[in-house]
């Protein structure tokens, strides 16, 4: 072995100036980094549990404890139909909140130095993170919807609309990923992010149409809840899934929010990432 290597030792090939990576190179880099992130996620099933625990507990709590009281005419199953679409948006927030954690870990260890000394775009690392977390979201939605079906949600044959609702919420969730990615890069520690997020998100989650119709709220809260993007996302998914109420308007608003937030936060996150690494 040793002798073989010693005799082989070819003179290093002359170095060519090959320039910046091509779009195909970028795709391959993101693919390789997605594999890394996915393996990390696989080795850490706890993080998936964390992502699923809150939504499932809330689903059970709201369906079984409050569902009979909240549902129209005390109809628990109809409340389940009302609740589940919004729970997807809530799930996506939970996953987005955790996204900064892994990123900070990469910055703290020498791994980022290694990546930066490689001929790849630095944004590849962020894009890979978003792709993997988006995958995590879709898995979480699937589990959540299975729980929903188990507790009485009725799809009523609207599978295509269900698919559209999932896609729309995932798109919305992606914009949340970029926001929390940016926060993760701006704040020092993972704990700081989670602490700050939790405080900011409680009013956003409950001051929305996820759990109850906003019309039942006092005027000032209704005003807040009707402009809350989470309400738009929940209304849009609900409109698609149960086929009642307005659909076009909340879908449009959700798209505007998702695209707008991504357009602002994604470039900022990439810029901050470049500066910090």
């Amino acid at each position, binding site marked *: *072995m040793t002798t073989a*290597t*010693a005799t082989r*030792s*070819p*003179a*290093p090939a*002359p*170095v*060519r*100036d*090959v*320039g*910046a*990576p091509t779009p195909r*190179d970028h795709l*391959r*880099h993101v*693919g*390789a*980094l997605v*594999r*890394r992130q996915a*393996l*990390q996620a696989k*080795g*850490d099933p706890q993080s998936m549990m964390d992502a699923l625990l809150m939504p499932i507990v809330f689903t059970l709590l709201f369906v079984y404890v409050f569902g009979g009281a909240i549902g129209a005419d005390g109809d628990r199953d109809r409340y389940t139909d009302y609740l589940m679409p919004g729970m997807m948006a809530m799930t996506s927030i939970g996953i987005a909140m955790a996204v900064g954690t892994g990123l900070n870990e990469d910055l703290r*260890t*020498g*791994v980022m*130095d*290694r*990546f*930066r*000394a*490689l*001929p*790849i775009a630095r944004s590849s690392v962020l894009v890979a993170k978003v792709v993997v977390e988006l995958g995590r979201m879709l898995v979480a939605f699937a589990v959540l919807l299975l729980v929903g079906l188990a507790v009485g949600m009725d799809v009523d044959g609207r599978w295509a609309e269900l698919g559209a609702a999932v896609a729309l919420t995932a798109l919305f969730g992606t914009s949340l990923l970029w926001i929390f990615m940016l926060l993760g890069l701006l704040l020092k520690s993972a704990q700081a992010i989670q602490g700050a997020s939790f405080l900011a998100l409680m009013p956003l989650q409950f001051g929305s149409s996820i759990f109850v119709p906003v019309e039942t709220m006092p005027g000032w809260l209704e005003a807040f809840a009707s402009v809350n993007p989470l309400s738009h996302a929940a209304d849009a998914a609900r409109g698609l899934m149960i086929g009642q109420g307005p659909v076009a308007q909340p879908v449009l608003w959700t798209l505007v929010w998702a695209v707008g937030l991504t357009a602002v936060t994604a470039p900022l996150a990439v810029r901050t990432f470049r500066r910090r690494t």
Partner: protein
Amino acid sequence: MTRTTNGSDLAVDVHGLVKHFGETRALDGVDLAVAEGTVHGVLGPNGAGKTTLVRCLATLLVPDAGRASVAGLDVVRQPASLRRAIGLTGQYASVDEKISGWENLYLIGRLLDLSRADARSRADALLERFSLTEAAHRPPRTYSGGMRRRLDLAASMIGRPRVLFLDEPTTGLDPRTRNEVWAEVRRLTREGTTVLLTTQYMEEAEHLAGALTVVDRGRVIAEGTVDGLKARVGGRTLEIRPADPGELHRLLGALAQSRAAGPAAPRADVAEGVVHVPVVSDAHLTDVVRLLAERGFALAGVGTHLPSLDEVFLALTGERTAPADTTAPATEEAAA
């Protein structure tokens, strides 16, 4: 594309490199020339600017002034191509702790645009070479310090780099692991890789490097071959500890009367109970030991020691340089 700017085979070519961090001048006009296929040591205390220099050369930092090329490629204008020609192993193991050793190497192969098959076989080959095959499918957090450092080196070798940067590769390693790393570095150079190594240890520089650049506070304060610098600094010292401390002066006298004393005068350290003899060559060392045996001195200990970094700096600058724990240089290195 050209091999080098001036036609000679320089793997690293640095002129007047400057890098500031706020008020601190981490690099204050550094010149450096590393010949192809050699091991070049950059020696200096904490905060001297060693890490900053390596990070500029590895395109992790953009210098404020001056120019630098590695493998004939400019660090500022051709970073993407340059990154294909280099490997970097920093002070902190830069491997992903959560995915297996094999996956770490495969990932880097793919990021270096190897095909899947090439990345796979390269990962296998390097794990074999660095004796990590058995640990290939475990995550590095289960590795020992030495295994982790070896994986780190393997990761730096994936792209068959022309120039390998090792930033204090043995800091914090136990002696056995340190020797493993040294053996690997020597093997890499035998195979034609150029190595730029930073270290705080004179001993490490002596073991590995043919040429040395000594830096302090962002400036080059001396350069030359290890032997040349040692000649300027003073080489090894032989420490002789007689079994009976009362014999200290008799021993010193015996040395002084014989030719074995050498050009520099031996001196006795009564408090320590040892005699220090500066030795100029292996033959000289042998002469001294032979004399001690002939005269029948009972000894409790004999040892040689290299000048410490402090002594090197003392000799090179003629003044005591700032110790490693002064705040300004320390933060400068941390900021890097």
